[in-house]
């Protein structure tokens, strides 16, 4: 501990001259990334030595890697040394003190999305009683889960309370050297969620990030680890439909899922990070690595995502189907309006016998949006009798947007069966006219048509999420026509 404190001091001293954002509070580290930064973060979080070493090995890997350029997205070069890699959680008094101080535009959007009043304050970061409500909800909720033996806590807490579990699984699905952004995250990850469902337990409720909105400032390098032990079942919801703003432009998260024998994990995401203005200025860059391992026989991992935010999305939630008869699913709706760019899809890696995977991807482009579906289906030699069904549909709105489809297929076992369907369509003037002739406004008509297009995916979302996601698609497309 003494050593750690010394290191903190060193970093603080060194960085002081380079300029803290605030030199009084000392809660944001100076920009730059080297071994000292990693040691500083690890020490601040009072992490054990093994985790520090793990982070350092990731840093060394990252330093030898180069940023990938194969994605169909374009953005100015990121200067990784100009980013600050640690910020202490925000204190309540730093945020707006009441909804009156919140950007009216944001409130208007909450209204349109039908977000309950007490949640709006929390989402806008207002320090009011609502936050205390949420704390109490959070506490009673955790008590209920604990009765079942379920662990659901922040990643940092898990490192302290369940180090053996974290150590056993961390990096087993997404190794530190997996890719550039994964290595970066592994070196400097801030916080995230940790979930463990014991053998045979069916989690009695949807686990939602909403319950930990104020539990921690998860920051730009989020790390989530979910383990479903034999025969267990869990449904996890990430994100929320309300637009989220963040002063950090670069986000590089990692999600690792492990499903043991007969276990099932359903992971749903609604991502609505700030997409930038109409010219694409100021939007979030979202470079995410999400992967699930179907470790045991007959296990199942299902990803469902609704991606409407971020200026740039680079994201491929994938499944490694190792257990015999295991099942992987990927349902995705990605929407790019204005200048948004999304390169997203999935990888299904079939290793076990009779493994099955389903991919349903719905891309919607409007304005100058650019949309790429990138999918990889790999059937290993061992994957006797594997099956994949892929469907990717693109919907274009207006004449300036783009849709691309890049499916990769690699089959090494002749008994595999693969199907691929793809369509591209445009919201037609005739469809709009038909709807309007029946009395719908143009915006309602667009929203209706888009929701119809995305229905197959939306119905995979948990009910309350699905309703919000439907509205979100409509709101995100405002101004896309005419």
């Amino acid at each position, binding site marked *: 501990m003494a050593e750690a404190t010394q290191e903190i001091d060193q970093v603080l001293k060194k960085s002081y001259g380079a300029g803290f954002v605030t030199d009084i509070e000392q809660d944001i580290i100076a920009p730059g990334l080297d071994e000292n930064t990693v040691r500083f973060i690890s020490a601040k979080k009072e992490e054990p030595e093994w985790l520090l070493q793990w982070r350092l090995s990731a840093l060394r890997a990252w330093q030898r890697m180069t940023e990938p350029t194969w994605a169909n997205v374009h953005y100015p070069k990121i200067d990784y040394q100009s980013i600050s890699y640690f910020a202490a959680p925000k204190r309540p008094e730093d945020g707006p003190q009441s909804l009156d101080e919140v950007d009216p535009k944001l409130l208007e959007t909450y209204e349109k999305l039908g977000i309950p009043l007490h949640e709006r304050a929390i989402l806008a970061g207002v320090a009011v009683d609502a936050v205390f409500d949420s704390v109490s909800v959070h506490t009673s909720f955790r008590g209920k889960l604990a009765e079942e033996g379920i662990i659901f806590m922040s990643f940092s807490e898990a490192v302290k309370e369940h180090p053996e579990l974290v150590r056993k699984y961390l990096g087993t699905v997404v190794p530190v050297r997996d890719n550039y952004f994964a290595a970066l995250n592994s070196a400097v990850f801030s916080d995230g969620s940790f979930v463990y469902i014991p053998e045979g337990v069916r989690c009695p409720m949807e686990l939602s990030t909403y319950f930990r909105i104020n539990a921690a400032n998860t920051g730009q390098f989020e790390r989530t680890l979910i383990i479903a032990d034999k025969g267990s079942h869990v449904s996890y919801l990430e994100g929320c439909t309300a637009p989220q703003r963040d002063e950090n432009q670069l986000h590089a998260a990692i999600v690792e899922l492990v499903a043991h024998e007969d276990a099932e994990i359903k992971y749903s995401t609604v991502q609505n990070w700030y997409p930038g203005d109409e010219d694409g200025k100021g939007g979030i860059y979202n470079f995410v690595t999400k992967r699930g391992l179907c470790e045991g026989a007959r296990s199942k991992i299902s990803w469902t995502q609704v991606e409407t935010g971020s200026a740039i999305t680079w994201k491929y939630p994938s499944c490694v189907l190792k257990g015999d008869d295991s099942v992987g699913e990927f349902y995705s709706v990605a929407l790019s309006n204005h200048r948004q760019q999304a390169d997203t899809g999935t990888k299904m890696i079939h290793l076990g016998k009779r493994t099955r995977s389903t991919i349903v991807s719905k891309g919607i482009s409007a304005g100058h949006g650019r949309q790429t579906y990138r999918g990889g289906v790999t059937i290993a030699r061992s994957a006797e009798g594997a099956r994949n069904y892929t469907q990717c549909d693109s919907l274009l709105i207006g004449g300036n947007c783009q849709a691309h489809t890049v499916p990769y297929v690699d089959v090494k076992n002749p008994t595999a069966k693969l199907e691929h369907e793809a369509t591209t369509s445009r919201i037609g*003037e005739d469809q709009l006219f038909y709807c309007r002739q*029946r009395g*719908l406004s*143009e915006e309602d008509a667009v929203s*209706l048509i888009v929701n119809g297009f995305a229905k197959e995916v939306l119905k995979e979302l948990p009910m309350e999420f699905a309703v919000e996601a439907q509205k979100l698609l409509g709101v995100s497309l405002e101004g896309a026509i005419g």
Partner: protein
Amino acid sequence: MLKITDLHAEVGGTPILKGLSLEIPSGEVHAIMGPNGAGKSTLSYVLSGREGYEVTSGSVTLDGVDLLALPVEERAAAGVFLAFQYPVSIPGVSNLYFMRAALNGVRKQRGEEELDAPSFMRLAREKAKLVELSPELLKRSVNDGFSGGEKKRNEIFQMALLEPKLAILDETDSGLDIDALRVVSAGVNGLRDPKRSMLVITHYQRLLDYIVPDRVHVLVDGKIAESGGAELAKQLERDGYAEHRSPAA
């Protein structure tokens, strides 16, 4: 009552309607017949306000309301309904969901209260009987994978729900076999109403055996060339449009 006065309209700079005048009193059914390219479908789109159909002069009022000043959906709320020649499909959107959104959209614009789901369901089931539309079809995506007959029956079902003041039927008979034609016509006849004007656009007299019009108008080269009673349709069926064609055409 629909009142069209000296209507001129063009599509892509080409004049199509050239001084069309027509009055359809409430409670009456008028048929418009005419050769290909006379402007029949253009008339239906101009009345409903489709983009690309430019009115250059003239006026159109429905019960005194200036239709030309309104965008498409407000005309719908004012009581204009167009039964499409080629109904459009909307994959993934159930017929019932669509029609509830449409009906409530119209009611909202009229300042009426929106219908809740159970009341709407009752209404929809009742109206579906009129054109023998099966409950299963109501749940399917709008016109997606519907047969020609199902599509047209669905149009009349929608019309029954929306209860328009002006119903325009654009070649509703096209693509219908004789049984479907009977069902659709019976549906339309069931919707005749003292407060409703109907405009039936067709190529063939056949439809008018089932939907007997109060007046028949012959549209040639963007103008009404002749008007008469139901017997005019039979005469056209026999003699064709030759005598109505302008020498230039």
